[in-house]
């Protein structure tokens, strides 16, 4: 247990050293705004990927409406700062909470559905959110809403660390094990005394909360938000991060979010090519690594592996 705590603090320290270096580069203007912006965008995408990973990878609920929660977080936080004059931090939290509440309202009825049906229900929800914002003049309708630039490297990195710590801690506890057991075999989980509905909804709400936070960061990074940014293609982008990384692997979601954000950022001038490359990458991964980049492993497993082999294992790897 002590060893686990130490690796935890070690990774936190490592993360903040990384943060410090980047922050230094930004403040000394060695990193130009384009790269800074890419880094922020990577943070946002990782938050989205990791939050969806909790729902799909850990709990096994195939939700493809994550852009809906992103949109809610974006619009609510934008309303808070632009219309109500609240500080950015309050707006971020408000965006997260409203998205989480929406997750609760949508989750309770729709998580009774399974597989394809749940996918369709969540997709429908995301479209409803988009259409609602499209038709509200208060938030600018189709023309969109102007938002000040408030997202910095510091805020996005803090949110990212918070997301990863919360979701990793949730996963590595009796609650996370309950969620994984639902993914593995819902009937057996139920028979073992797990309240499956409760945990499905809990995972969904936590995932929605962080998608809402990501929405707040997103809105305050791009000067303008429009409903068209939150269509179902956005949901699929996030889904691709999770599937490509390997369903059930948090580090896989992080790695693939970084990888694909870099690819798509450098192909921004040619959006059509971007989608072709996306598709090609997906096809290639599914052909050569159907379990995703990381499978269900975590990066830490590779370190743990050596220790385990030394300890001797009857059945081998």
């Amino acid at each position, binding site marked *: *247990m002590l060893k686990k705590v130490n690796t935890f603090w070690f990774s936190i320290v490592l993360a903040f050293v990384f943060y410090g270096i980047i922050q230094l580069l930004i403040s000394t203007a060695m990193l130009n705004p384009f790269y800074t912006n890419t880094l922020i965008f990577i943070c946002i995408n990782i938050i989205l990927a990791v939050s969806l990973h909790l729902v799909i990878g850990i709990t096994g609920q195939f939700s493809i409406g994550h852009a809906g929660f992103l949109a809610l977080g974006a619009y609510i936080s934008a309303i808070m700062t632009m219309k109500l004059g609240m500080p950015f931090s309050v707006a971020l939290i408000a965006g997260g909470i409203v998205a989480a509440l929406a997750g609760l309202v949508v989750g309770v009825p729709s998580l009774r559905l399974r597989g394809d049906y749940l996918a369709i229900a969540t997709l429908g929800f995301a479209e409803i959110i988009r259409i609602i914002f499209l038709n509200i003049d208060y938030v600018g309708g189709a023309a969109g809403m102007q938002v000040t630039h408030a997202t910095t490297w510091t805020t996005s990195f803090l949110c990212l660390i918070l997301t990863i710590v*919360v979701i990793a*801690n*949730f996963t590595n*506890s*009796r*609650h*996370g*094990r*309950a969620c*994984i*057991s639902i*993914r*593995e*075999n819902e*009937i*057996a*989980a*139920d*028979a*073992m*005394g*797990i*309240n*499956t509905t409760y945990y499905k909804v*809990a995972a969904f709400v936590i995932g929605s909360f962080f998608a809402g936070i990501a929405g707040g960061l997103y809105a305050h990074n791009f000067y303008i938000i429009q409903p068209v940014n939150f269509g179902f293609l956005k949901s699929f982008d996030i889904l691709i991060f999770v599937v490509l990384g390997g369903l*059930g692997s948090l580090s896989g979601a992080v790695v693939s979010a970084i990888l694909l954000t870099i690819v798509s950022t450098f192909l921004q001038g040619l959006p059509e090519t971007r989608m072709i490359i996306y598709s090609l990458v997906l096809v290639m991964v599914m052909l050569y690594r159907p379990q995703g980049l990381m499978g*269900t492993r975590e990066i830490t497993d590779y370190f743990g592996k050596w220790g*385990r082999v030394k300890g001797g*294992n*009857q*059945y081998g790897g």
Partner: protein
Amino acid sequence: MEAKPILNVSQVGISFGGLKAVAGFNLELYPGELIGLIGPNGAGKTTVFNLLTGVYTPTEGEITFNDERINGLAPYKVTRKGISRTFQNVRLFNEQSVLDNVKVAYHSLASHSILSSIFRLQKHFIGEQEMEAKAIDFLKIFQLDKVKDEKAKNLPYGEQRRLEIARALAAGPELLLLDEPAAGMNPKETKELMELISFIREQFNLTILLIEHDMKLVMGICERISVLDHGLLIAEGTPNEVRNHPKVIEAYLGEEVVSNHA
């Protein structure tokens, strides 16, 4: 026999649309008993298990467990009341380790909240450590502690069966329902299983209800046997009584044979 049954099933039935899968099923289980439930394929044995564990809600009749009505309760609530089960086709949490499979069954015995886990409060560590220690001790009883870090799907079939029984017991039941525990086992494994069942019955003070096709096993360890056919209870009694019951022979071998036999 003790005076009070632990489980009382009276006139329970369920229909799916027009099909009566089980009708008028009666069963009384007294503490410490080991009862067999047999019948030809499609007789409704697993349906009875599903009724008892809350997977299905009976359309008629009443099930009481420790004097508490349990029909219509959600499966996880039934488990928390003290009825635990295994499945006909093994249903382990394949991608989870052997240890985690057992820990999941301990889930409702721990009490640290989601928030205490997220913020890694003292409660979380205490709760998790307790679960871990308990689960390891538990695996030792079933000689599975050596493979505790192995994924459940990588275990040999016999050990998977054993793990499933271990997991069901970790949930802390008073009544254990075993659905064809010997399915797919060779005679040696079946013999080991019979020993295991007798052992856990003593060790955990269990009442056991068992579905099985292996007659040697059923006749060997069960004190009483109920026979189902086409959703109806056709016979009840000691292994010997059941073995010679004309209706049972008819259900298994057909009517013709009975008349020839007579």
